């Protein structure tokens, strides 16, 4: 469900870009997805294929680039990279981490003809 709205968001951006840059077709679209973003990659891939039909990005390749998850540790006050949302602080072992990066869902660039 949620991935469908993301794909619709991508389509809106592509249609705006197509008007602004006068291109016919998108061949490849690169998106950056944070490690903690609420996105299921296979579901987004599927939604992308369905939602792009009839748009300039029909049959375009979708590349997903992972962005790391980062958090501020409330115990040692340093910013650290964590792999999973509930990981302890790798520096002090503390368990009170506030995510500061890793929730991104960004369109980076696209190849067009």
């Amino acid at each position, binding site marked *: *469900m*949620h991935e*469908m*709205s*993301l794909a*619709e*968001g*991508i*389509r*809106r*951006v592509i*249609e705006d*870009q*197509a*008007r602004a*840059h*006068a*291109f*016919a*077709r998108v*061949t490849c679209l690169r*998106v950056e997805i944070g490690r*903690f*973003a*609420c996105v299921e990659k296979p579901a987004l891939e599927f939604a992308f294929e369905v*939602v792009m039909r*009839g*748009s*300039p990005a029909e049959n375009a390749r979708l590349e997903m680039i992972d962005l790391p998850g980062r958090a501020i540790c*409330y115990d040692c006050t340093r910013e650290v990279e964590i792999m999973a*949302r*509930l990981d302890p602080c790798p520096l002090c072992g503390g*368990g*009170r*981490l*506030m*995510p500061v990066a890793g*929730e*991104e*869902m*960004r*369109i*980076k*660039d*696209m*190849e*067009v*003809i």
Partner: protein
Amino acid sequence: MCTVCGCGTGAEQGHSRSDAHGHSHDHAHGHGHDHSHGGLHFGHGPAGTEVPGMSQVRLIEIETDILAKNGVHAEANRARLAVLGAFAVNLVSSPGSGKTTLLCRTIEALGTHPLAVIEGDQQTSNDAERIRATGAQAVQVNTGKGCHLDGHMVGHAMDHLTLAPGGFLFIENVGNLVCPAAFDLGEDCKVAILSVTEGEDKPLKYPDMFTASRLALLNKVDLAPYCHADLDAYERNLRRVNPAIEVIRVSAATGAGMDIWLDWLRGSLARKAARTAAE
């Protein structure tokens, strides 16, 4: 005409609740939604565009948030609320945690303070009717298959309400602990409601919503003895996923803790007013 999306629904402004009944219209330009039975109904059906262009491969840098369009709607809502000095709360939780019950109780306790309510559910206008029964104005948004409210829906819902300066806007999101976390509605903050019948580990299982919220209302504390709930464990797990979160223990059924929640609301509104005045 709606100045944000240009979809023409702004013309609905000024319609009273009863005027909004019994008519519906669709928009042919891609994000069709119609208004009928006094609620707003949303669905999606993007229109195709084909733009003739050149044949050389180019790379276009975009660096745009996928939800950028939602962000534009959310910021427009936020600006409208700022002009009014109104404080908007986005209430998020799983279905059945007690959002509507708590809202009704809150409205009664706020007495004559100006406020309005936007109710989000996939189907039915039951909740808006429950709110109107308290005497407050409410508009129901049905998301259809959609699992969350978005900035566009809330902007149009606001057109159907008379928001008074210095009032509260309560937005009851669709019951879902996942997706609403990602959609900014233009609110001042999210408030998560977690009831003691749901299990102490829910914040760990669904961290995003609790990380995105400024306050958690731990509801149904009257039931704690019956379901062997460990309220301290609830709070510990909430702080594990959001060390800055505030927690208030309440019962919408008995009214326990409601005074603290009301103080929190009035304090937040006053702080927003002070911030705005200082700018």
